[in-house]
């Protein structure tokens, strides 16, 4: 059981073909892990943004595909785990302009990570 977030190499060896209880969160959607390895079973893993081998059996895993917003995860951006978003990125959901005496003095933005197919 380990944390292999943002890694595609140095992944744990399967035990009797089973990979169990690890965190394989990736920065970009549809990142391949264990590419070319066949006959695997993933059990109780975090597979967010992962593409497992086509023949892999996936049991009780989180298989969400997510577009992460760098505005929400500056620590990941700083290390280089995710790419930098533009200020007006597609993750932006709310633009709140503060107006005082008819003058826009500040703007607040709200961002959300987005599920992707």
């Amino acid at each position, binding site marked *: *059981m*380990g*944390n292999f*977030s*943002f890694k595609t190499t140095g992944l744990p060896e399967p035990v009797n073909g089973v990979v169990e*209880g*690890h*965190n394989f*969160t990736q920065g970009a959607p549809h990142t391949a892990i264990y590419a070319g390895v066949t006959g695997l079973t993933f059990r*109780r*893993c*975090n597979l*967010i943004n992962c593409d497992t081998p086509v023949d892999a059996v996936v049991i*009780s*895993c*989180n*298989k*969400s595909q*997510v577009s992460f917003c760098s505005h929400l995860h500056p*620590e990941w951006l700083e290390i280089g785990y995710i790419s930098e978003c533009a200020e007006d990125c597609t993750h932006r959901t709310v633009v709140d302009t503060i107006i005082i005496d008819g003058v826009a003095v500040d703007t607040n933005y709200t961002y*959300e*990570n*987005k*599920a992707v197919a």
Partner: protein
Amino acid sequence: MAGPYYVDISDPGDWRTHTGLDKTTNMLRGFTGLLCAVDLAVAGEIVYIKGSSSDMSKYYNVPYDASNGTALTNGEVVSWHDGTGVFYMRTATTTTPGWSRIELLTGNIATDNDVITGASSGGTITTNAAAGNNISIYFGTKDGSLSTGYIKYIGCADDADFTVTYTDRVLIDVKSVAVHGFEFIKNYLWFENIEVTSAGTSKSGFCTASGGLAPVFYNCSSHNNGSHGFDLYSSTGKASVIRCLAYSNTGSGFRESNTTGSKFVWCVSRDNTAGGIENLMSGGDVIGCVIHGNTGSGIYSVGTGLVFNGVFDNNGLHGIVITNSQGLIIGNRITNQSVGTKAGISASSCSYLTGWNYFENNDTDAVDSIKYKIPDGATSYVPGVGSLTGTDLEDLSNTEYGYVDISEHDFSTGYTNSGDPDLRRTAITIPWT
């Protein structure tokens, strides 16, 4: 309780009226007498109903046997479901000929419907919903508010939307759907023996959207979720998190409240894609916890609380990050932060008190060194050394603290096999990890 009540439907009279309760015999008569009995009875009381050989069809709309959907023959009173979900009744056999017994289930409820309107008094709720049906459970008093006491979730024994893996635990598998596993807004809730997994995009295992004052989490697990394991950020604070496990979440294991006073005792937070415990604000304590393998820091933002007897190992950033002064960090084992490239304790222009901590392989490549940081202008106390101000220590011998080989700390058992027996660290591990 004033019951039990007796309703003789065989004596209906004018079905639009009833004679009221005979207080000598607790007897009611007719169809409307039955409704009167329901109104009088409180949770747990029994209403006895006497069947009739007369044609009763004119007194209720669809007399049918709820067990198989067939029409009743005259005089039978079996399970009666009126379709509006106001109340549910079932018959049970009695030893009194001619009388069927109906138990009002507003205390203890068993239902095969998909919606349970929660009990106004304590009791056990069991469900037999068909696979794939959603279950919504609404807890509250009759006026819709929960003011005192607490509601305790304990693992249930029947398969429903809550899938039972073990007989003493509830498993909530969100199956990657973008919802939180368990979202709550009420105060004083108690969660026990509940495992939540696979909440989808940016969703947490346990989460409070607002309110949620003083929840208790005991022996719960939250893992492989799209955001935090336990997200109390919007809570009004004072959570008690005891013997809980958070792992492999794409977020922090535990995210503390934006207010004060949560306590984390004997918890494990490991292998999360952010920190072990995030946003630990003033008054928050972390006692006897094992925090390792997280991509971020072990604990971020210690305030004025206590971090005691914990194990912090191999987190991707620092072991403990302090952002407010007066943190008290005592008796912890802090090792291998970012494989020796980050600090055991990191602070920004604030002071904190430490004592009897063991450090190894932090912020240095030398395995045998002890390293931690005291920022300029801050003061800390190092046992065996004394008070230090703004000084980075290097190459202190670890023999003072009795440890020899950090590799013998077995995280699967939580036990350190090496070093001074009096200084060995143990950690509570949850057997179903």
